[in-house]
């Protein structure tokens, strides 16, 4: 009997709690009305905001188009003043941009690597000289770029002309003699150029068959022997032949 009593009370309580929860989960009409009002206002505000933004965009687009036209007419007047065409300026700009990129690449190279690009750097140097005299270089933004690039190319030229040296190693370890030094890839890659090293270091080398370890030799620039170097080489070969 007592169990039945407890069970009935428990059931009644559960029923109460369940009905309260169901009643709470459902939106009331008042809440619905309040949300409707909130969202109706929000939609109206957002719609007005979107319309205003669209109108602003139209205004900005018109402003942008006018600026395009103004800029074009300003540039046309500038080019007319210089007697050049838009095409000339675009070509100048492209050439300059290409050179800027190439110089950046060259600047990353070592002095030894740069030597392989001597012709290109010299051509660039000459062309920059011509470009700096062009009327287009009178336009400050191009003139400034030409000047900046010229400074970089000057730096590359300096690296090219920097005196190259070679420190003599030992015969037992490095097999260093003028012939073998001249043959090295980063020197002349041509053993027959050895008289150039000899003649470039007459103060240190009296006899080309004798060079000493740790001797610092200048490596003169050039791809061929000069007349004097050839003549020195010939007299060396004659002397050698005579002594045998």
């Amino acid at each position, binding site marked *: 009997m007592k169990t*039945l*009593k*407890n069970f*009935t*009370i428990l*059931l*009644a*309580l559960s*029923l*109460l709690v*369940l*009905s*309260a929860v*169901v*009643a*709470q989960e*459902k*939106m*009331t*009409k*008042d809440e*619905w009305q309040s*949300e*409707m009002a909130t*969202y*109706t206002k*929000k*939609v109206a505000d*957002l*719609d007005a*905001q*979107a319309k205003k*933004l*669209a109108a*602003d*965009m139209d205004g*900005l*687009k018109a*402003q*942008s188009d006018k*600026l*395009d036209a*103004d*800029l074009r007419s*300003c*540039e046309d*007047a*500038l080019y007319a*003043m*210089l007697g050049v065409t838009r095409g000339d300026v675009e070509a100048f700009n492209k050439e300059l941009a290409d050179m800027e990129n190439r110089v950046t690449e060259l600047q990353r190279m070592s002095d030894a690597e740069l030597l392989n690009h001597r012709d290109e750097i010299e051509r660039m140097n000459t062309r920059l000289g011509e470009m700096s005299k062009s009327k287009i270089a*009178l*336009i*400050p*933004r191009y003139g400034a770029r030409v000047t900046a690039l010229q400074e970089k190319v000057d730096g590359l030229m300096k690296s090219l002309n920097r005196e190259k040296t070679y420190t003599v190693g030992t015969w037992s370890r490095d097999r260093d003699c003028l012939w073998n030094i001249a043959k090295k890839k980063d020197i002349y890659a041509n053993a027959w150029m050895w008289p150039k090293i000899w003649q470039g270091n007459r103060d240190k080398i009296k006899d080309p068959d004798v060079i000493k370890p740790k001797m610092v030799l200048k490596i003169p620039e050039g791809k061929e022997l000069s007349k004097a170097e050839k003549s020195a080489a010939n007299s060396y070969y004659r002397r050698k032949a005579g002594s045998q």
Partner: protein
Amino acid sequence: MKLPVKAFLWASCLAGGFLLAACSSSPSDEEMAKLNELKSQASQLEGKVAGLQRDKAGMEKQIADKNAKLQECQSDQDAVKKALGK
């Protein structure tokens, strides 16, 4: 009437009252659909407004860049005039 039965009846009445009150004052399915439609409209408009704000910022930047270019061109003109001795 015995106590448990009495309590059960009271609880049933109260629960019924709650449910009746909740059901009779809650919005209909049609009204809920209206609210949901309004919510989705608001969400779409929020997206549209955000997109337009981004476009506007981009356009303003473009205009600032073009203004700077125009000023540069005008100062280039002055410099060239000076260099040419005009």
